[in-house]
């Protein structure tokens, strides 16, 4: 018997919801009220979020020459959209931190997710993207569907993990066989439920098959390549034992010279632990 995607998502609002502060920030940015002061006041309402954001903006992520000690300064230096996206990232980790899961360790899962976000952000920085934080968020969320699978239907998850390990098959292929859908489909459905940007929906849905993406092929290709690099570097673990099949066309779509690859790997090594510690505390 196959699992039911609707059941998986049926009470997601009880398990987690998109953070209020993200909705407020998004509304403010879309309206004419997006002054630095207004954005700061929304973030400052949540003191725990403010502390987490200040830790992140003072991390290896940015390497600012001076310490940033106030949210109003962070808004000016980092940018409103960027800070909104970082607020989303840190709030989601916080929301999912304490859900009970088996078969994967949360620390390892988030290390893989954050590493994928860091790698995506580094790759995006090569083509002068104005808001590279959205690549960080997309990379960080790419496997979120797996957390839902292991927490809501552990009996199915156990079978998926056993079969994948025994046959050295990528987890997403075994998920499709056993469940009738994969973690990418679940993650994408969650993004839709949360009413997050459409780009996240498509990136997450096609991160194993980036050439199937219609509107956001470049973004999806970046996350696909970042995921492969991070798996190869063995940074954390989202349950997958091997590097998933790499679609070479994704690298062609990104359009970077292969000469930048060692630099990308080196930058990931330099940033990932610092960023992980700051996101995870």
């Amino acid at each position, binding site marked *: 018997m196959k699992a039911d995607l609707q059941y998986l998502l049926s009470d997601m609002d009880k398990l987690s919801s998109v953070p209020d502060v993200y909705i407020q920030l998004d509304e403010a940015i879309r309206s004419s009220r997006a002054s630095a002061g207004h954005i700061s006041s929304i973030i400052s309402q949540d003191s725990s979020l403010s502390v987490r954001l200040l830790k992140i903006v003072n991390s290896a992520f940015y390497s600012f020459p001076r310490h940033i000690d106030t949210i109003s300064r962070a808004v000016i230096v980092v940018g409103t959209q960027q800070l909104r996206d970082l607020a989303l990232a840190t709030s989601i980790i916080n929301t999912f931190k304490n859900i009970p899961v088996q078969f994967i360790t949360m620390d390892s899962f988030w290390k893989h997710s954050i590493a994928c976000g860091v790698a995506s952000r580094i790759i995006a920085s090569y083509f002068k993207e104005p808001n590279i934080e959205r690549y960080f968020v997309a990379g960080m969320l790419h496997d979120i569907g797996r957390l839902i699978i292991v927490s809501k239907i552990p009996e199915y998850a156990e079978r998926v993990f056993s079969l994948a390990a025994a046959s*050295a*098959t*990528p987890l997403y292929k075994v998920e499709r066989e056993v469940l009738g859908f994969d973690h990418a489909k679940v993650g994408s459905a969650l993004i839709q439920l949360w009413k997050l940007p459409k780009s996240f929906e498509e990136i997450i849905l096609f991160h194993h098959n980036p050439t199937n993406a219609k509107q956001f092929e470049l973004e999806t290709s970046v996350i696909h*390549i970042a995921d*492969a*690099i991070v*798996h*190869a*570097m*063995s*940074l*954390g673990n989202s349950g997958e034992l*091997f*590097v*998933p*099949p*790499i679609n*070479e066309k994704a*690298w062609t779509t990104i359009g970077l010279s*292969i*000469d*930048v*690859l*060692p*630099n990308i*790997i*080196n930058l*990931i*090594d330099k940033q*990932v*632990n610092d960023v992980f510690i700051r996101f995870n505390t």
Partner: protein
Amino acid sequence: MPKIFIDDLTSKMVLEEPVKDQHGLLLFQKGIVVTENIIKTLREWEVFEVSIEGNDHEQTSSIDPLILKFAKIEIQDLFCNNIHRGPFTSELIRHITHRLAVRCSKGMSNES
């Protein structure tokens, strides 16, 4: 043209190609004899590989062959779901194998 990693670069080697930084800025002309200062500069500019005259040996030559063999087996295993490898995958495997071999040589694990 085979390249060698900066970790394996030593004085008196000769650059076979001009060396540029990540933004395409020329750092050293071809034909220059490598010195310790040049190696230091390359590290500072985050250049990781250069082409060297007469370099027909394995690029990871300074690493213990046994460690290199171990790293190659480990990484091949990790890429078992990538049988048909294109240029990107092949380069990724090459760099990750070197990274693992260097980390093993320093007594570190694959993971950061």
